[in-house]
């Protein structure tokens, strides 16, 4: 096939032999020298500052639209702006999700200088979430907004499945932080499924993942935000503590149930005041048991995480190269040929490389303890969370899961009344 194509082009080129060549013919005998490989320089401070200002403005506008204006239309327009600006214009980088790794690396590597924009993209959404809920997710995050535009026929994810999927972001966050802390890779960026779409180029598997997620997003609203995004873990925590979170109704809830199915993210909590209560003593017993279990979960998780040191360390290029060289020596394999060639040219000794790899693996072992311990605490707290009953007598957004998208506002008859009054006042 390839030969045919080449012959075809040869034929075409002979037909157009009088046309000027698009590419100059290489002149090997005239001392042709390869141009030097250049790396793009860092973004200028001015542009970085502009990025931060735009982010701050977008967050402020989203807050105003959600909390004050209560305008879904406004949120939708801001969503489109964010997809265009933060997504296609800025090519999805830098984003708050990836900034987790910059901050982690900065915490663990005193040689690494944290860029201003990375710090701002990490902190500002968290500060806004702490004050106003997840307004960043509502209309600013390019990864979230592009999925938001795909929501057409949302369906409810079965609660059992949702419980499992909701825990994935914690695992992803733990792994992403571990790889960043060890200086291995920014895996969250590398596996960002939407960046290839924003850049209109990228690795095929990642691009396909992004497309598949968008297609799933037609039915399962924002699958990445809800079941994958590591930054959503932090935003969820902040939003739970938020001081001024969006409410479904602008007034007192009349429990008309009209908003019950309005949230595509299943983030509306229904009143439970009339539910049959569990005997108090059994609830307390369970809670005590779970609290006792919590440290064991953390220790068990830490131990299991530390067992993964070898597997996780292989993501590190130094460890991979060391293992490849060692295997090559043992069995005359030819693994990582180019990397091996570069290594030989560097003058470094194998023993040095092995020691480096060993040190890195130890770091992964220690990091595995922290990651596993963190996950143990998360799972323990999740068990406790589903075992504690909080009494609600009205429809409320789940502060952690609510993306402040403003979709539920118009389901509330009180909201209609408010708009009517506003129009009357304006008239």
């Amino acid at each position, binding site marked *: 096939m390839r030969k045919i194509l080449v012959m075809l082009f040869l034929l075409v080129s002979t037909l157009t032999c009088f046309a000027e060549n698009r590419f100059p013919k290489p002149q090997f005998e005239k001392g042709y020298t390869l141009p030097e490989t250049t790396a793009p320089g860092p973004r200028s401070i001015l542009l970085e500052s502009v990025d931060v200002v735009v982010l701050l403005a977008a967050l402020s506008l989203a807050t105003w639209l959600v909390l004050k204006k209560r305008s879904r239309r406004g949120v939708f327009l801001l969503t489109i702006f964010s997809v265009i600006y933060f997504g296609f214009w800025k090519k999805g980088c830098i984003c708050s999700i990836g900034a987790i790794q910059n901050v982690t690396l900065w915490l663990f590597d005193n040689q690494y200088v944290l860029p201003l924009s990375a710090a701002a993209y990490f902190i500002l959404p968290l500060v806004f979430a702490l004050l106003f809920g997840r307004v960043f997710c509502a209309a600013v995050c390019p990864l979230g907004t592009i999925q938001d535009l795909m929501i057409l026929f949302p369906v409810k994810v079965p609660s059992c499945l949702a419980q499992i999927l909701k825990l994935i972001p914690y695992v992803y966050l733990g792994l992403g932080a571990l790889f960043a802390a060890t200086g291995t890779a920014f895996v969250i960026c590398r596996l960002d499924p939407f960046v290839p779409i924003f850049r209109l180029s990228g690795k095929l598997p990642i691009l396909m993942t992004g497309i598949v997620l968008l297609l799933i997003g037609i039915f399962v609203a924002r699958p990445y935000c809800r079941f994958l995004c590591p930054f959503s873990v932090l935003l969820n925590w902040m939003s739970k503590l938020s001081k001024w979170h969006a409410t479904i109704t602008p007034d007192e809830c009349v429990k008309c*149930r009209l908003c019950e199915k309005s949230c595509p993210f299943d983030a509306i909590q229904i009143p439970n005041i009339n539910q049959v209560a569990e005997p108090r003593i059994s609830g307390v017993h369970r809670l005590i048991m779970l609290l006792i279990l919590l440290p064991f979960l953390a220790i068990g998780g830490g131990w299991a995480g530390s067992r993964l040191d070898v597997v996780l360390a292989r993501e590190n290029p130094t460890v991979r190269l060391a293992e490849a060289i060692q295997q090559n020596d043992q069995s005359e394999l030819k693994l990582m040929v180019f990397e091996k060639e570069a290594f030989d040219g560097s003058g470094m000794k194998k023993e040095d490389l092995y020691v480096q790899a060993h040190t890195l693996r130890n770091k992964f072992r220690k990091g595995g303890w922290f990651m596993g311990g963190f996950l143990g605490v998360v799972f323990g707290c999740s068990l406790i969370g589903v075992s504690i009953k909080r009494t609600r007598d009205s429809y409320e957004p789940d502060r952690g899961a609510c993306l402040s998208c403003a979709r539920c506002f118009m389901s509330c008859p009180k909201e209609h009344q408010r708009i009517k009054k506003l129009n009357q006042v304006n008239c």
Partner: protein
Amino acid sequence: MIVDEKSVKLSYRITYAMAVVSCVFSLLVGMLMVSSLMAVRTSSPLDMPEIDQLRAVLKENPTDEILRNKIRDLDLVSRRFYFTGLTSLRTGSFLLLGGVIIMLVSLKTMASLRRRLPNPREYPASPDMLQSAATARWVIAGMWVALITGAVVIGIMERSGLEAVVPSNGVPIKTAQPVTMPVSGQMVSTTVSPAQPVTASPDAAEVLKNWPGFRGPLGNGVSAFTNMPVSWDVKSGRGIIWKVKVPLSGMSSPVVWGNRVFLTGASETKREVYCYDIANGTLLWTARVDAAPGNTNKVPQVSKDAGYAAPTPVTDGVNVYAIFANGDITAIDFCSKKIWDVDMGLCNNTYGYSASLAIHKGKIIVQYDSVDADGKVSEMIALDAATGKKAWSITRPVADSWPSPIVAQTGKGAQLISMANEWIIAYDPVAGKELWKVKCAGSEVTPSPIYAGGLVIASIAAEQVYAIRPDGQGDVTKSHVVWRSEDGVADVSSPVSNGELVFFAHSGGTLTCIEVASGKIIWDKSLDGEFYASPGLAGDRLYLVTRNGEVFIVRAGRKYEEIGKTSLGEPSDCSPAFVDGRIIMRGATNLFCIGNK
């Protein structure tokens, strides 16, 4: 109202048609892109077997111009095909994006036109939350068990083969293989003959084979080798293995580990560490030492005799550690990679900081004696060799000084011995605690102490030589000084001893031999030269370098006997390094490797 319904229906049909058209369009574009992508992926211009075949033929007939042009044409076509494919992919991306946007807008409009109002009667008012919570607990617990099991199983199944070469103690099992070294910043060039294995903590035998710091493995100027040359001629090149110019000047002496010779040089603004190949003198790399974090870039005041690179670096076989007059200390690995750097602060030193570094059990020891200005006090500091972090430090009741500390293996264990104006002090090099001290006089203390014949021997300029038993505690001035001598007091260069006799070279040119046990003067001899460089001892031969580069080789015996006299051909104040038949010496401008070729 009827009109509204009609218009809604019409709008719905239009958007439906738009959605279908845009969907079909997007699918078509997508399919074309996939086929284009496959073609591009299978037609890399760098991987064309046809061209490779023709190139092979061309190698046999290099003058075949027709074949040459054919290769060029084929190459051009393949490149054109590849890049045209990329361009069409990019255009397709834009078309696909446009199609998807129109499809989305149409579908959204359709959805909003067909939006159903909520009807709460269709679903239960209150699902059973207790049951949901119970299920959620089981689901979470199940997932946790699955995760833990998965992690443990994977952890057991996947073990690294690296354990075979790097055991749990982190010390690699030695393999001796040739390595390729970068030459002057270029990544490929010289192959260094078998390199010494790098160990995290080299054993004593390994240390003795090398010359890892100022005055050698024990800091006393004595080499473990006896096969040193006694004559050479720089002018004719006889006995000179190589001679290379050192980029920046310095009073530091060379250190050697395996096939590498390390040296430092500095000017007012530049500080550099050099690594030479001992086989041929090739400058393998130069590591520029930029200001360490926190350094204010203040230029230290130094005298001509001290310069900006007086302290000799030290190596543990893994990294080389160097300190400069501005207080910057750095660790660089054997491939020029900076491991860490630390700013010690500018040392208030009358002539310029000169104390060389010592090393003991993973700690780099810095004698940082300073005149009391700006609140700065003299300190003995130990830095962790791996990280540069301070392991311990202890203040010293002394003024600025120029000797280097040594770590001596005494009958009471390892002792860090230092000397300065008014005190000779020994410390525990591990814990940083003071062990004993001897009060002495002297104002500008420059020679370093040695440990020989069970005694610490210290030459305090313009005062006396002290011989001290190192088994005391506290102030042992009155109890442990075995003898003092006013004869042979060296003022700049350090003494050297074979255990029985100790030799002192004075800057005025006098060489004095004293018996270690008694302090009795055996002989002295006035030589034609001034001595700043500390002498070395290899076997029974003393090597003494004068300031103008003359080298006296004298028998280390009870009678003065000159074995030879030769010259470097240029001034030198640096101490020689001795390794297996070779002497590495630094002159004012050149580095020499002397021995049999």
